[in-house]
């Protein structure tokens, strides 16, 4: 039973064996012993407390002026509260956000299989195979489908947000309905669209009812169409989020501006073009950039719906498979580093936009 599930989770037989071995000996890998464990050893915790104490004692007197007579006890309290309130969040952050990145860089230069006690450093070999073997890098073109879908998504979100920011009957109903898909469980969405796109499923039935039978395709079996179908499901899922963000931004525009423009004879298009668009330009740009890094790291929907088959493999699905199915943690780490670089660059561009705004 348990084996079946481990297999379902994509762990190879070798990998499980390694896991059992590691558990049997009760030994940690040397890297973890060195990097993680110190955080949990009591003597080290006290050492960091001591460090904080030392750190504070120099600046403690600075507080004297502001708090008059009570500065001495507050100074000690300060040290205590800073240490107490920082230690847990910081330990969690370092262990689960930064340590994986550091380890990932290290693994990317090795041929480690994920469970062996030894591995060899192979220099840039893993990176070479990513950029030279088309098998690995070509999946990036699948991201293009999600990238273009992003613009459809933004367009729809902007359109509905604009319309619903004016007087409309049933405003709350439409707002709720358009936003609701974003709140749904990822697996439920995957299944909803498996049902939607399956031969003779919802989509085919709708097309038939509209007399558009000739458009019917094998939506999830044809490698030329599958990514369009999956990107469509992705638009359905995420449009509501952009919509609600845009709606919030548009509704913060003062009503007076619309009234003034009405007097000047501006129509709705003019109002959109010259009032709404300029005031929410930044937030649209931000959302586009966020969606780009989302497109690059597309994972949930294709993984749940097709598992990456029929040409729907994305870079993240591939990375996960290489690591957990084929036990090539070294290579997978190099792929993850490449992805991390791309996403970080995109995010830095976004940060620049925010800075510009300020």
């Amino acid at each position, binding site marked *: 039973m348990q084996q079946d599930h481990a297999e379902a989770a994509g762990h190879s037989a070798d990998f499980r064996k390694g896991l059992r071995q590691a558990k049997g000996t009760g030994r940690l890998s040397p890297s973890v012993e060195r990097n993680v464990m110190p955080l949990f050893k009591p003597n080290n915790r006290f050492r960091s407390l001591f460090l904080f104490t030392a750190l504070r004692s120099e600046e403690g007197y600075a507080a004297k002026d502001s708090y008059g007579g009570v500065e001495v006890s507050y100074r000690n309290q300060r040290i205590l509260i800073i240490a107490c309130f920082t230690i847990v969040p910081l330990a969690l952050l370092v262990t689960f956000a930064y340590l994986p990145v550091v380890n990932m860089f290290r693994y990317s230069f090795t041929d480690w299989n994920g469970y062996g006690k030894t591995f060899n450093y192979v220099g840039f070999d893993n990176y070479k195979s990513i950029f030279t073997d088309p098998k690995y890098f070509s999946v990036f073109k699948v991201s293009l489908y999600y990238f273009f879908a992003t613009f459809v998504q933004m367009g729809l979100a902007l359109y509905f947000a604009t319309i619903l920011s004016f007087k409309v009957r049933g405003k709350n109903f439409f707002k709720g309905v358009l936003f609701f*898909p974003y709140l749904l*469980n990822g697996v*439920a969405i995957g299944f909803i669209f498996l049902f939607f796109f399956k031969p003779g499923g919802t989509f085919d039935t709708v097309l038939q009812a509209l007399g558009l039978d000739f458009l019917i395709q094998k939506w999830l079996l044809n490698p030329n169409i599958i990514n369009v179908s999956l990107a469509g499901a992705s638009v359905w899922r995420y449009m509501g989020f952009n919509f609600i963000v845009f709606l919030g931004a548009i509704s913060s525009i003062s009503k007076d501006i619309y009234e003034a423009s009405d007097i000047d004879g501006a129509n709705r298009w003019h109002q959109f073009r010259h009032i709404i668009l300029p005031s929410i330009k930044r937030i649209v740009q931000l959302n586009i950039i966020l969606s780009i890094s989302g497109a690059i*790291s597309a994972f949930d929907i294709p993984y749940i719906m097709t598992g990456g088959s029929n040409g729907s493999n994305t870079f993240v699905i591939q990375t996960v498979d290489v690591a957990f199915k084929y036990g090539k943690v070294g290579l997978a780490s190099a792929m993850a580093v490449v992805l991390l670089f791309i996403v970080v660059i995109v995010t*830095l561009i976004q940060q620049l936009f925010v800075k510009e705004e300020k």
Partner: protein
Amino acid sequence: MQAAKPAARKNTQSHAVRYTVASIAKYVTLIVGALAALVPIIVVLFASLKTGAEYGSTGALTPPSNWLNFDNYVKAFVDGKMMVGFVNTIIILIVSIIGATFTGSMIAYILSRFQFRGKKLLLGAFLLATLIPSVTTQVATFQIINDLHLFNTRLAPIVLYLGTDIIAVYIFLQFLDTIAVSLDESAMLDGASYFTIYFRIILPLLLPAIVTVIIIKGVAIYNDFYTPFLYMPKSSLQVISTALFKFKGPYGSQWEVICAAIIITIIPTLIAFLSLQKYIYNGFAQGSEKG
């Protein structure tokens, strides 16, 4: 466009006609959009209420003959052990949210109210972490979870939600800026300790921000598939996402049962959405401003 403007002024009648046409077009697109959002879910509801034979013989858009046929729901809920999924999801949800509220508000309190050497570094460390997309680092995270003996325990997703999702820190930091420091200071004049100030003043005032954190984190955790899938493959530890995912293989041909399972998963989301609508809209609008 420029030509349209004087034309519209010249002839108010044509302006009115155009206005009606635009208004009709507006409602048509809204209805099409609403249908596009709802139809994929409604057909799943239809299918979940059909018998096996009925499902095979009717189209997807045909409503069920008996709206009270819950056989598929019973089957999905019992055979798919969805109760186990709900219990595990709720445990992880509650512990993670309480944990995130405390760790997030503690570090935010320190970062917004105290000046000390290394503060900028600390703040930077928390802000920089959001740049790391956690899906890319799973390869290395897995080894850490494994080495800490957290694999196949509920603690694995909990510590990951606490350690890698830093959005709570952002929201609390933002909100703390709006709480006047003079409140802290007057409490200090009354001799309150920093701990008292945090528990008696800061934490209660943070309540609106805590609601936002509960909503954003709650939605993310309830819908997360990959973390429990990778770190808790044991069937007694399945959460709602992984319980639903397991229907894929064995029930491949019984879509009416899978559809019932989908609807069971959606119902809690729908109830939460209808009862907390206002907070949910505000929560996501606020959360998006973190940039």
